[in-house]
């Protein structure tokens, strides 16, 4: 039995993983700190993040979980480590939590029922059905850039794939797509001056919430009067415990689907393009049998990208983790980018190895009840866009270093240039 130390008197670990500077750096720099923690202090207590959205006097710090095995354990103990008080590092205003985190910030039994409802839309069979849309969307995106020779890869490729596909599934019409994809960036980008352009972070997040909810309410009304074959219709028709979901419930799920659907796959595609440019011998291996090797390569691209770097849980009661006494209410942060570099699980994790097998990355989660709902959708999208890009623009490569985000949640690429020999078009021009 370990000695019980109250939260206030617990000493902070000397490693800095809380400051804005730490998160404004590169994954490579952060990994040096995580490697040290994994080796010597796998469960450690840290001072609160320095640039919270608002000052929370009750925020005294967080536990950092950095090893693969410990992360898996935390995700698989949902009764001890709750999601309902928020899944981000920072404390968020309860209005934002309720409005934007849907079932990801929910605990059983309600989570179980909503998750089951959502599962119907993400079955392998359903996804196979929309696969031709995914392929067609990828083709159209490459059509649009093929003659240019140089593009902002993030805005002209990576952001568009998930936007089109998640909007197709949810049932968001063309006129709202760019708005929802743009607004979704503020989920983590509220601390990025390049995005904020002078706006107050908290005010900007509320603006995002209100914009997304405005669109959600419009769609809810439309689907009630005229059902379609999409997720929005499924949500307005669904019953949980014999009751219809409220408009606010649906809006919150809608916001989660948009954010989780857009901001993750976008990063994986961007980091993937950079990795394929940085490791030419890996790319050559892939190109020897693109169709055959893409599925396994996509897993390594996802590990490499680790689009979500952290998830938080909150201790439901006093409990033990890795020999430490965790107090009820303590924040426990899991570092996915660290777990995906754990040498206990991955041989030379610092090297991109597209043939890595088995690849036990936890980018989609550690196998708990919040395991990524869209994992198969993400895999299909990443596969479709790289098949299209590498076949039609075989010399596409990134130029210079990408401009990175400064958040602690999404592993954001803000902007990145890619160049290629323009595609020679036969027949009529578009």
């Amino acid at each position, binding site marked *: 039995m370990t000695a019980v130390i109250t939260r206030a008197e617990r000493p902070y670990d000397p490693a800095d993983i809380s400051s804005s500077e730490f998160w404004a750096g590169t994954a490579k720099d952060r990994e040096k700190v995580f490697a040290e923690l994994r080796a010597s202090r796998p469960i450690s207590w840290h001072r609160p993040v320095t640039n919270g959205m608002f000052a929370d006097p009750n925020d005294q710090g967080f536990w950092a979980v950095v090893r693969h095995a410990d992360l898996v354990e935390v995700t*698989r103990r*949902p009764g001890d480590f709750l999601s309902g008080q928020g899944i981000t590092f920072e404390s968020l205003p309860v209005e934002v939590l309720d409005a934007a985190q849907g079932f990801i910030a929910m605990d059983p039994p309600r989570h*179980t029922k909503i998750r*089951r409802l959502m599962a119907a839309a993400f*079955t*392998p069979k359903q996804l196979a059905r929309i696969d031709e849309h995914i392929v067609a969307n990828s083709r159209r995106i490459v059509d649009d850039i093929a003659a240019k020779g140089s593009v902002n890869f993030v805005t002209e490729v990576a952001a568009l794939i998930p936007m089109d596909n998640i909007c197709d599934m949810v049932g968001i019409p063309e006129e709202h797509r760019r708005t929802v994809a743009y607004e979704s960036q503020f989920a983590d980008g509220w601390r990025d001056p390049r995005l904020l352009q002078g706006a107050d972070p908290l005010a900007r997040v509320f603006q995002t919430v209100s914009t997304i909810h405005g669109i959600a309410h419009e769609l809810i009304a439309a689907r009630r009067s005229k059902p379609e074959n999409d997720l929005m219709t499924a949500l307005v028709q669904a019953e949980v415990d014999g009751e219809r979901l409220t408009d606010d419930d649906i809006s919150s799920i809608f916001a989660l689907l948009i954010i989780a659907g857009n901001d993750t796959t976008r990063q994986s595609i961007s980091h993937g393009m950079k990795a394929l440019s940085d490791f030419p011998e890996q790319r050559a291996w892939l190109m020897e049998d693109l169709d055959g090797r893409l599925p396994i390569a996509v897993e390594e691209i996802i590990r490499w990208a680790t689009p979500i770097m952290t998830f938080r849980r909150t201790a439901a009661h006093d409990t033990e983790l890795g020999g430490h006494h965790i107090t009820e209410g303590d924040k426990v942060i899991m570092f996915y980018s660290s777990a995906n570099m754990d040498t206990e699980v991955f041989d030379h994790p610092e090297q991109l190895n597209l043939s890595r097998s088995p690849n036990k990355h936890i980018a989609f989660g550690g196998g708990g*009840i919040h*395991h990524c709902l869209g994992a198969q959708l993400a895999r299909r999208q990443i596969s479709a866009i790289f098949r299209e890009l590498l076949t039609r623009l075989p010399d596409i490569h990134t130029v210079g270093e990408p401009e990175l985000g400064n958040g602690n949640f999404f592993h954001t690429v803000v902007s990145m240039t890619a160049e290629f020999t323009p595609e020679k078009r036969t027949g009529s021009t578009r």
Partner: protein
Amino acid sequence: MKIVVDKSRCSSIGLCEATATDIFQIGADGALHILMAEVPEDRRTDLEQACENCPTQALSIEG
């Protein structure tokens, strides 16, 4: 042997389906369906893996 699903626990996360697509299937109704009433003995490892992987401990083997 048979696979038993505790329907009050199952959240249709689908990790079992990822382990053995011919035995487990999340249906269009969002519920887990077992596709084999009787699972042959040579699939025991798959079933054990599925039970172990289940995030909600909703699966067990009978027999």
